[in-house]
């Protein structure tokens, strides 16, 4: 029976705590009286995954027929799936998407459906490469769909591919993939790594264009999403739900399939990452020393290659299918079952070690903007009720934050960093002054459509993701970060944790409370 999450009070006997530091690790001795939040241990994976998938497709939730009865010969079927940003890290083969889609395709074949198209639900993300698609879908699916052009990736900048479905009662444009919108059935295959994923967000965001996304991907909405991981208190989700219901009201039928993962995140050689430090065996300590020391001596490009090569052993803990909202409710409960940790009260200082990966640098480079987004956009938002850190408190993150960019994947990030952040870091000002020019820039659009680039507006969304945290926090410090890059982000660089604590005392006083978020593996702090 896996143990639940746990909050440790640091005393003198507590061993040094492991901090992620990008592609390296650090250990820090936290002040006595600090708290460390450990994630729950991984739940057991489903034993018969394919059986569970079949069962879910045949026994849908909510107001939905079983999938086979929705499939008829001569119909137009579109299967959409989450892109490279999920799950993190990429999972060992076979990928959940492959298993689910193969099951769906079997049923479609049985029903004699010929017109089947697969769409990678990119929204404004980069196009996946052939190896990435093969990894997600398996060679069998790839080879039967790709050559005939029936495996596609959403091109939200091709007016021919998009269909405007009118506006919600709040005046929000709803524009999604025309192929999907004009299909007799959309099957959407989700991997719900965190509570933010899935629900109406799948179609309303994953298949949408900039014209539609800008109604919820903006500073105001994100400042009112508290948190992103709490659908009921997230303005982002409220907007998506409105759009989802609008889409349903147009008579578009969606068969939603959602899956949840356990937190068995890292392969054996990194098993120490999944354990609590005081429970490390001699072998864990040895492997930590070996891994950490050799990483410190490895050139950074090779380190990136090593880490990006990690395929996670995490596995499916649940699968549910049917009507969107009914499915999502069960899914959220399943995510919480794995990730929720109860935490008593807020803290003055929140510390976290940022890992090497976030949704937007799979097989890529973690640039400074993604560092900010991972810390302030994602980890800061891993809460329910109240943020872990009090208003006006200090966030201390560990990451080397080098000025490094992937020129193919993140071209607009480079310009955003060099031109926009050099002028201001205020999300509202950035949104007002720069968003349109980046979003409509023909060169970025060209790269998004023909190469493998995130859309020109994407770095703005990363910055908006931080908006709630930026508004809430009194100071952000990055320990061990490249000072120039850190300052460009508007944060304070510190070389050691004790320096950072010293700097933080200017904001939170001389004897602050401190909490450390020991993730990944991921967790959601339920702050009472």
């Amino acid at each position: 029976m896996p143990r639940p999450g746990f909050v440790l009070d640091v005393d003198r006997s507590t061993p040094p705590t492991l901090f992620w530091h990008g592609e390296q690790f650090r250990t820090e001795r936290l002040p006595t009286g600090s708290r460390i939040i450990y994630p729950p241990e991984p739940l057991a994976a489903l034993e018969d995954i394919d059986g569970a998938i079949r069962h879910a497709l045949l026994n849908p939730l909510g107001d939905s027929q079983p999938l086979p009865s929705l499939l008829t010969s001569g119909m137009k079927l579109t299967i959409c799936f989450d892109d490279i940003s999920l799950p993190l890290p990429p999972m060992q083969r076979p990928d959940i998407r492959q298993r689910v889609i193969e099951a769906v395709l079997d049923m479609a074949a049985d029903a004699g459906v010929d017109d089947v198209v697969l769409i990678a639900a990119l929204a404004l993300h980069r196009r996946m490469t052939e190896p990435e698609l093969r990894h997600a879908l398996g060679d069998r699916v790839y080879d039967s769909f790709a050559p005939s052009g029936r495996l596609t990736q959403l091109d939200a900048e091709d007016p021919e591919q998009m269909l405007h479905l009118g506006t919600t009662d709040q005046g929000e444009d709803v524009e999604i993939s025309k192929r999907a919108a004009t299909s007799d059935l959309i099957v959407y295959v989700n991997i719900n790594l965190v509570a933010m994923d899935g629900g109406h967000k799948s179609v309303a965001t994953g298949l949408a264009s900039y014209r539609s996304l800008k109604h919820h991907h903006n500073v105001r909405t994100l400042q009112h999403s508290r948190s992103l991981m709490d659908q009921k208190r997230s303005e982002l989700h409220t907007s998506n739900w409105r759009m989802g219901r609008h889409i349903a009201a147009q008579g578009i039928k969606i068969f939603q399939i959602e899956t949840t993962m356990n937190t068995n995140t890292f392969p054996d050689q990194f098993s120490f990452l999944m354990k609590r430090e005081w429970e490390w065996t001699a072998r864990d300590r040895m492997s930590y020393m070996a891994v950490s020391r050799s990483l410190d001596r490895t050139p950074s490009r090779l380190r990136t290659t090593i880490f990006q090569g990690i395929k996670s052993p995490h596995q499916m803990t649940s699968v549910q299918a049917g009507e969107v909202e009914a499915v999502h409710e069960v899914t959220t409960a399943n995510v919480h079952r794995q990730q929720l940790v109860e935490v008593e009260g807020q803290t003055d200082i929140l510390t976290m070690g940022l890992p090497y990966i976030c949704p937007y640098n799979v097989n890529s480079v973690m640039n400074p903007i993604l560092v900010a987004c991972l810390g302030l956009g994602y980890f800061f938002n891993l809460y329910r009720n109240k943020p872990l850190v009090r208003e006006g408190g200090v966030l201390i993150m560990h990451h080397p934050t080098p000025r490094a960019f992937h020129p193919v994947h993140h071209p607009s990030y480079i310009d955003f960093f060099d031109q926009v952040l050099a002028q201001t870091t205020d999300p509202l000002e950035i949104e007002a002054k720069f968003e349109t020019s980046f979003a409509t820039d023909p060169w970025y659009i060209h790269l998004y459509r023909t190469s493998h680039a995130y859309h020109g507006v994407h770095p703005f969304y990363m910055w908006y993701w931080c908006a709630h945290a930026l508004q809430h926090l009194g100071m952000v410090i990055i320990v061990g970060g490249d000072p120039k890059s850190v300052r460009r982000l508007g944060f304070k660089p510190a070389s050691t944790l004790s320096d950072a604590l010293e700097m933080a005392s200017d904001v939170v006083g001389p004897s602050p409370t401190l909490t450390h978020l020991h993730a990944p593996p991921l967790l959601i702090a339920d702050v009472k």
Partner: protein
Amino acid sequence: MITSALEGKRIGVTGATGFLGTALVERLLRVVPGCEVVVVVRAGRRTPAAQRVKREILRNDCFDRLRQQWGTGFDAEMDRRLKTVAGDVSTEGLGLDDEDRALFRSCDIVVHSAASVSFDSPLDAAVEVNLLGGSRVAEVLGDDRAPGDPVPYLVAVSTAYVAGTRRGESPEALLPDTPFAIDLDWQAEVHAARQARSDAEAESRRPERLTLFAKAARSELGAAGAPLLADKLEKLRTEWVRERMVQAGKSRAHSLGWPDAYAYTKALGERALLANRGDVPVSFVRPSIIESALAEPKPGWIRGFRMAEPVIISYGRGLLKQFPGIPEGVVDVIPVDMVVAAIIAVAARGPLPEGPDVVQVASGQRNPLRYRRLVKLVQTWFEEHPLYDTDGQPIVVPEWSFPGRGRVQRQLQRATTALSTAEKVITTLPIRGKKAQLSSRIEEKRELAERALGYVELYGAYAETEAVFKIDRLLALFGSLDDADKATFAFDPIAIDWAYFVQEVHLPSIVAQARVRTTPGKRKTASRSDRGRKAVLSPDRHIAAFDLENTLIASNVVESYSWLATRHLPADERVRFVLRTLREAPTLLALDRRDRGDFLRHFYRRYEGASRQQVGDDAWNMFSDLILRKAFPAGIRRVREHRALGHRTLLITGALDFAIEPLRPLFDDIVCAKLGTDSDGRLTGELLTGPPTGEARALVMARYAEAEGLSLTESVAYADSASDLPMLEAVGHPVAVNPEAKLATIARKRGWHVEQWSKAPGAPRPLLPIGPLLHVPRGRSRVNNHRNPVAISSKGGETG
């Protein structure tokens, strides 16, 4: 009274735009109110003589005092008293027209101070001006005079060094009367000098020579295209001829015991004038080294950078570590106002009845300045008033130890040789960007060393002079003046307080003139590169033309080919392909350096037989996998900045159309290479038109600008190598991007804007430019699966 003697006189002056001439004209106009001055001035290539007088004489700060004195009446007074005739002492009859000739001949007194004073002027030029100039003036003045018609009195300015470098006293006597003076047939020397010029011209045109010049031009500019290379070759040839004539002058002078061609031609000029003077009464005034004014028109007034100045400034900047000289030797320096006063006194005195005479103006006999003292004075002054380097730090001047000339020369020679070797090595290395700027720094150092060597060779003799120039006649003349004249025309050198003159008058003046940094601290103004960038990104620009390889992306046509060719190859064949390409690399590189167009023509033959459709499709993958990874984000951003400013963006590249198709949205227009296709849609490997390389780029740009009605002078061009020079030179705003050594040097010399652009930091760097392995479904053999889109036949291995 001098002034009354010159009252109402018309005085002609040659060389009025020179240092001495300007001071003389000013002094005459200011001190002798009743005189009229006629200046003989050579018309410039574009400016008429009168214009030159206004610009080069009257606007000089020498006239500040007069301007102040006369106020608004200055121009009227000048119009009335200063006449200009257009003439040139290096042409027969001075090249005067009838009217000017009459005016010039009507002078009462003529001071001939025109000279080619540069110590390193070519032999024939020095001969024409210094040797024959005096005779020509005398001829014009004396010709066809009716009996009784008064002939003007000619005061010829010569130099104390006409007696040559030798120890002992040098009397104020005509050369034929001076013991040990070398007696030479001046006519033979004139003939020889002219002969030397035509010999050098002929020699420089010999095929062997021309080959050498061509090689030198090539090594300096690289494959810059025929017109630029031809232009460079002609410059090198002219320079070579000049250098040879300078050498001819130097060696002829040295062989006869003169320190340089100047003294040598002046000495012969005295003899020639004595022979050709006819009825013209003549006096010679021989000053020693003329330096800045002691008092008139103002202390420290100096015109131009003369002999000692560059040496002193180089010393103050810490560049000249040693200068040879005899510590107890006399440096015979004389302030310009004393020379002017002496000339006026001689003019006022009039010719002597017994014929031509000589007056020397020098300080060595009466008030000697020893070399050791001079150095000490200069050193202490710079210690108190240091110059500052570019970082705003004071420069510490070196201690001179008075080594022999030979030793200093050898040291400098060695340094120069070492530096130029280093420079050559670096230029041939395949480096670019910041590293390549090392070569321009070395070049700068070499130029400094060469200049120092030049100073030592040129002026060394003057710090080693042990001759004493006698000035008994000068002192006698001074003694004959009344007290008022003695005060107004002070030319007795005893009046010079050397410490005052060097430290209070001369040094402050030349340091101010040299535009060196005399204040500490960093400069506050915008850096040069900021200003350059601003100029380039001005909304007024018309076209922004870009080269591709190493300007916008760190890749080339060989990499593109290699990527496309390996894309459909199985792993083992890829290795073989890469090894073959690596083996060929040096040959390809050499071919590329020789001629880019030929290289492309040769290289593109490898595409023969490849499917146009297939390479076209693959190019889109190459765009993400190779081109964008190796792109310079700052460069791409710059293209877009130009576009945003409304400039036409133009890509000019030797790359193939399909390879750069994905870059099309970045530019308004693209000029590139295109291959032909056969009826099966396969590439022929032959270019449809000549590739846009070298001078073809300049033509393309000119045609483009004309067709669009845009101006190239208002356009910007970005390129990385000297072979792109025609493109860079075609526009008004060239930008060198990550320049290789040759271009870095050229850009520095011409003050071009330089950008250092790099690949995205942290970008993945594939080791070899090969396409990623394609997925091969299980069960199918790789060999069956692959098709060879780019025909890598045995042909691929051949290199011409």
